[in-house]
């Protein structure tokens, strides 16, 4: 059996692509580098949109990246069911691209927050969360200045009512996100975005607060292998 191939996208200003690729490899998949300027998804089975400051966060976080040549390919593929995970800046890009509803705005307290954060898994029915239990509390690093999730009342009610809030902050909301939302999914459950960083919590050696991030990568691998 060939290894599952997970694409990791690099934009100018992306920071977490190397950690993401390493996490993919640790889980036993092949990490395929994807370049923002290419119209080419290289036939990958899933895509990881990592964090950082793509295009320097100019205009709004993710606003420029969302129109990159790679996104021209990724947006229709994701709509057609390709599993996509966006963390931090990746989550912002998914919202700017309207692959996920709502937006990420400036943290309520204006401070850039960098800390270990408790998160509750609210939905293990997505492509990226199957190896968690619903209700399980995990710890992942957060590091962002614009992570306050907002959406209008109707969208929020729809997300809550249909189980599309995938992660919620516990033990204190770091950024003022509405309903303590840390991550959401689309209707089909193949696209997930969250502000915390699973790719930074896969190895004890690096001083991560946990290895809880591994679950994201083992979840997608199991799904791809069984597909």
């Amino acid at each position, binding site marked *: 059996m060939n290894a599952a191939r997970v694409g990791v996208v690099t934009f100018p200003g992306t920071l977490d692509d190397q950690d993401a690729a390493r996490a993919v490899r640790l889980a036993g998949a092949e990490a395929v580098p994807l370049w923002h300027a290419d119209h080419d998804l290289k036939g990958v089975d899933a895509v990881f949109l990592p964090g950082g400051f793509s295009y320097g966060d100019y205009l709004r976080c993710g606003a420029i990246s969302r129109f990159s040549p790679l996104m021209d390919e990724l947006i229709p593929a994701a709509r057609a069911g390709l599993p996509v995970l966006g963390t931090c800046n990746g989550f912002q890009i998914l919202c700017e691209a309207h692959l996920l509803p709502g*937006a990420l705005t400036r943290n309520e*307290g*204006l401070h850039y927050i960098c800390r270990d954060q408790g998160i509750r898994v609210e939905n293990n029915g997505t492509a990226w969360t199957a190896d968690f239990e619903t209700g399980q509390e995990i710890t992942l690093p957060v590091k962002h200045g614009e992570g306050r999730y*907002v*959406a209008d009342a109707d969208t929020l009610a729809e997300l809550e009512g249909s189980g599309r809030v995938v992660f919620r902050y516990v033990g204190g909301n770091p950024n003022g996100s509405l309903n303590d939302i840390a991550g959401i999914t689309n209707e089909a459950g193949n696209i997930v975005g969250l502000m915390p960083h699973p790719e930074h919590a896969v190895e004890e050696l690096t001083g991560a607060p946990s290895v809880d991030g591994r679950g994201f990568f083992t979840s997608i691998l199991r799904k791809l292998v069984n597909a």
Partner: protein
Amino acid sequence: MARVIVDVMLKPEILDPQGQAIARALPRLGFSGVRDVRQGKRFEVEIEGEADEAALAEVRKMAETLLANTVIEDFTVRVER
């Protein structure tokens, strides 16, 4: 050539912590009577030719597509005379 101004503001219901910080700083600097401050963005778009209805429609499209995120922001378009 004409200059078209696009003002982008967070929607009223969206929290603006930057505006709040400015509003809190003003009394400390001796400015009284400020009830609220909201911070936004102003774009000056220089276009070729006249700022006619077709050109303004094009700028509105730019604003919807890129300059503003209409999920959280409103925008206005006007010609600078």
